[in-house]
């Protein structure tokens, strides 16, 4: 339902060939440069081709500064690539206007961050409700659904707590519930365990894998935690000098 809706929306804007429906994410020679302090362009993300299927769980690996966060932001439509094409869920994200990208993000992306990024003035429940407010879904049932989501991440008893009253692991659980608020097809996580102690981090990772699987969402996690990468069937190395051939690019590095 959600897919066809989005497809219908983008058809008008694009009218070009779309990737098949089993593919959720498709990047074609996507690269990003930022203007440096001296005016010269600084490469933040080396050209990359990438295809991710629906319900796939993928890890993005690479050294610090290789462009993992940049890539996630491009997928979320927060920043635009300097070159290349980006499709997410049938939408050519790179050709959308800014407000259309905002709408796209509200509806199709769930995002979990290293430092949670919860709004401190709002309770756990409200943080989840907040995310629902910006999607197109009607207001009815929001309350109940937000409560259910928090229950699913194990925080059914902490609905009225503010972030400051929660442990960091609990805050990350709220963030995961919030990311799932609009049943997004794509769940992004940037170093979701880096601020947590080892065991809490493992539990959060398991939770992410589990809830995204249950929700039928595709999960893309950026991390340089080697230990974490072992839990993924597919690890994409970001930032390697890649020669454009899709074979090379989609050649997932299986670690273990």
């Amino acid at each position, binding site marked *: 339902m959600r897919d066809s809706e989005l497809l219908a929306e983008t058809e008008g804007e694009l009218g070009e060939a779309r990737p098949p429906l089993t593919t959720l994410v498709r990047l074609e020679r996507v690269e990003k440069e930022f203007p440096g302090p001296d005016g010269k362009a600084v490469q933040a993300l080396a050209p990359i081709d990438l295809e991710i299927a629906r319900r796939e769980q993928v890890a993005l690996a690479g050294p610090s500064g290789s462009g993992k966060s940049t890539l996630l932001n491009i997928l979320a439509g927060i920043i635009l690539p300097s070159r290349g094409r980006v499709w997410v869920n049938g939408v050519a994200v790179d050709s959308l206007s800014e407000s259309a990208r905002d*709408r796209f993000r509200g509806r199709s992306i769930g995002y979990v961050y290293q430092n949670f990024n919860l709004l401190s003035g709002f309770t756990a429940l409200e943080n989840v409700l907040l995310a629902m407010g910006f999607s197109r879904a009607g207001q009815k049932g929001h309350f109940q659904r937000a409560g259910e989501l928090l229950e699913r991440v194990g925080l059914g008893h902490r609905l009225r707590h503010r972030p400051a009253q929660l442990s960091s692991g609990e805050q990350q659980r709220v963030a995961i519930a919030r990311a799932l608020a609009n049943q997004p097809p794509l769940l992004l996580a940037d170093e979701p365990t880096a601020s947590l102690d080892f065991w809490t981090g493992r539990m959060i990772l398991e939770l992410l894998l589990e809830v995204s699987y249950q929700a039928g969402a595709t999960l893309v996690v950026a991390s340089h935690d080697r230990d974490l990468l072992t839990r993924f069937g597919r690890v994409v190395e970001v930032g390697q000098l890649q020669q454009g051939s899709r074979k090379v690019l989609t050649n997932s590095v299986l670690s273990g």
Partner: protein
Amino acid sequence: MSVWNIAWRNLRSRPIQSWLTVTVVAIGLALGLSMFLISQGLREGLARVTQPYDLIIGAKGSPTQLVLSSLFLQDKPGHNLTFDFYASLLGDKRVAQAIPLAMGDSAAGYWVVGTNQEYFNLTARPGGPPVWRLAEGRFFERPFEAVLGAQVARKLGLKPGDRLPSSHGLVADLEEGKNQPNEEESGGQTGIDDHHRSFPYAVVGILQPTFGPGDQGIYVDRRSYWEIHAHDREVNDLPGLEGKEPGGITAVLVKPTSYTAAYQLYQEINAGPVAQVVFPAQVVTKLFDFLGQAETLLEGISLVVLFLATLSIIISLYSAALERRRDLAVLRALGASRATLMKIVLVEAALVASLGSLLGVALAHILAQILSWLIYDGSALHITTRFLPEELGVTLGIVVLGLVAGLLPAIRAYRSEVAKNLVL
């Protein structure tokens, strides 16, 4: 969650800043509005008081003093007119009615007004109902019978049949330069006041409240004055009666036969050496001018405070937008558009301004009410401070002002970049 909800929560998350801003807006509005309410009420009240009186004639002196003493019972009376002059007025063809007022004595802290029964027939407009109506008892019929103004009766707890000791306000008050009758004198315990005990007033009637200064008067037959002061002359121990002509008349309320008659009297008498003629409405208009100046000053102060209020909205919301850069970025990451962030900030500004102006209107009415009580207590002039239609406009104006003040912070929020402010 709606934009309103988020804006409200944002305000609540920094309560001190928010309340300070609301308070500054409220005070700015209340200062100006309360004075506006009071001066509107005063204008109405003062105009209402002078309605029954066409002309007042008194001895040469300050017209304001003449009006304030004889109509508002607020100032010490001036010198007396001669009885001959009063008689000449009665004989004048241009005078339809001439009601004498003898003033200067006080009883129990209130001015005693000596007059005749005609006084009680005064109407606010020709053919209208009488200004003075009895609540209890009857009007006076002979000397030493007193009819009490509503406030006098209420404050002293007197009713028909009670007695009221009289005393001279004039000597002590003129010497001490006081405007109000002296409370101590009314006690009349010892010394020079002793002889007043032989002339106590009998309360025969209580007037209905008129919500004007007249409610503070004690009305007696003019001849009472004559007799008291005749007695004074016998006792001959009170100095300062020179030029006061005991038993004389302090002022005359004159109803002229026509408009032209009024102007002829005005010019003739004012040109002569004996007396002055005053149009009370004119004197009150002069008071309005004075009120107007005070109003302008307070309006100015109010504008300055409102300007500060606007600044404080700008500063508080702008700094909040800076402080909450990350929160705003998070909202963007959750799918909020730039326009939504702008709306949130504008709604915050509108909420602060509306709260401030609601509080300001309430505060203004409380202030005006307190002031009007004080005025009523001091002068018996009742000032109504009802809601004026202008207030709605002012309130809306403040909300618009708030929105304008919110514009800059809103644009700041609009411009903030997600990727830069989102700590990943």
